[in-house]
């Protein structure tokens, strides 16, 4: 087995008395879609923030592509190839959709201590940004203020921004959260197209989507991974059934 792209070892995060990430160990292999499921409050979003360096970890190690990144600041991790999307939409509301993605592109083209050339006429930023917007079906909305996009479109913009830096590991925190069935289906289809091309840690509540997309699944309960395995294994695991899946999926 080749070295995993991401190796999490004994990771801990405490909020006062609450242990949100409890001695968690987890691998993500290059090229896989690794789904992370678990009830609300299981610590999924906290883990993403720890992986990105937005929350410091209290113990444990995060190794990305062989390098210990546990103590690196966020921008260095992004430089190494990590990117995330947010469960609660977090776009630049008073920038256009294209500006949002262009900024994500800009973050990957070295430092921004460039004071003179107008960024909005810079094809090195605009062209790749437009390509990504079009992939997400937002091409026609490029010049619309993010605040004026529909909710579903803002969710798509979330993903576009996370993808813009061509990350080696994509952390998607409930990309379908709050979407209607049609929008969800389109997002699943989009992620399906990324399968095999990108390495993704996918947090998702919709079990149908998870079982359709994931190569492997980890079940998180109270900050601990109670099981990791192929979708069929997870489905059959009695502990998972008890703790999480409930009868409808267990019967399926």
């Amino acid at each position, binding site marked *: 087995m080749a070295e995993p792209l991401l190796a999490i070892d004994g990771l801990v995060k405490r909020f006062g008395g609450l242990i949100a990430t409890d001695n968690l160990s987890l691998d993500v292999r290059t090229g896989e879609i690794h789904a992370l499921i678990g009830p609300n409050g299981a610590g999924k979003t906290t883990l993403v923030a720890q992986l990105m360096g937005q929350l410091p970890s209290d113990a444990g190690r995060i190794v990305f592509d062989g390098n210990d990144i546990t103590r690196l600041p966020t921008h260095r991790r992004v430089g190494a190839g990590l990117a995330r999307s947010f469960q609660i939409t977090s776009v630049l509301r008073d920038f256009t959709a294209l500006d949002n993605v262009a900024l994500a592109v800009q973050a990957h083209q070295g430092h921004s201590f460039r*004071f003179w050339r107008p960024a909005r006429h810079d094809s090195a930023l605009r062209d790749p940004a437009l390509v990504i917007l079009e992939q997400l079906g937002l091409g026609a909305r490029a010049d619309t203020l993010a605040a004026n996009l529909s909710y579903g479109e803002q969710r798509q913009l979330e993903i576009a921004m996370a993808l813009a830096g061509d990350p080696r590991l994509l952390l998607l925190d409930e990309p379908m959260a709050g979407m209607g069935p049609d929008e969800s289906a389109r997002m699943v289809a989009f992620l399906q197209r990324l399968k095999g091309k990108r390495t993704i840690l996918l947090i998702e509540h919709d079990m149908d989507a998870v079982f359709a997309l994931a190569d492997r699944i980890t079940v998180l309960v109270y900050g601990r991974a109670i099981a990791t395995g192929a979708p069929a294994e997870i489905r059959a695991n009695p502990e998972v059934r008890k703790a999480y899946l409930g009868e409808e999926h267990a019967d399926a």
Partner: protein
Amino acid sequence: MLDVNALRNPRVMITLLLLIAAVLVPFFAGNFLVSFGSRIIIWTIAAISLNVILGYGGMVSFGHAAYLGIGGYAVGIMAHHGINSGFLQWPVAMLASALWALAVGALSMRTRGVYFIMITLAFAQLIYFVGVGLEAYGGDDGLTIYKRSEFAGILSLKNRATFYWTCFVLMLGVFYLCHRLVQSRFGMVLQGSKSNDLRMRALGFPTTRYRLTAFTLAGAMCGLAGALLANQTDFISPAMMHWTASGDLIVIVVLGGMGTLFGPLYGAIAFFVLEESLKPLIDWVRPGWGDYWRLLFGPLLVMVALYARGGLDSLFERAARPRHG
């Protein structure tokens, strides 16, 4: 830079006419108006610098007049010791202001909201009291400057019109700098951080260092305004960095329109014209009360806050848009 179609926009027209009229002021106006104009222009430069961090960067610095003071004192102190070359005085004024801004910024950049306001105010008060304590340079009473900055005979700032045009050209330069800066990659990061700092960080921007850089550049720019102000009044005193002066600068930026290129100019004109007209008006109604002009100015500001969120700039913008039904 300017295309012909833009001239149909009343906002552009107003600004252009304003600037043309401003160039011509020394030809037709008397001494008072030329000095008055210089004062507006200098404060516009200071307000542009505040607008960079406040309007585009979302940093509510309540101590921006400190840089006016540092720039002014740099000129005053050097003149006091017989160093009159502007080629030396002005860069020193800008550098000293930049260094102080860098220090204040480094210590305050991690705070937000009210804390940021309080810390910047506290540092400005510190500088104010340093000025009061500088007995060798007049302490509380200030210091008269007997010789204006010299530029090797190229410019004579003693000449009222020359001084005015010097300020004017510098203002245009600072406008152009600001215009380039906010459109650049750097400017996008600055504005992005104002809009959603959390997301900007997640995208991989270490935003603190960009905000700190903007804060320092703004300090330098305001230091230049301070150097000009010292020359204009031939005088420096702690009063130029009093917290009320910092407040006036915020008022000018907000009144003109935060985060708009020409807002600081509109704001400065409105502020000083109102000051000059409200004072005599109140004195006429009630002799001796002119100094309380802010009592009338305050409610006016509230009106702007309520009915013209984007300041004067947004009023021109509204006038520029075609009316509906």
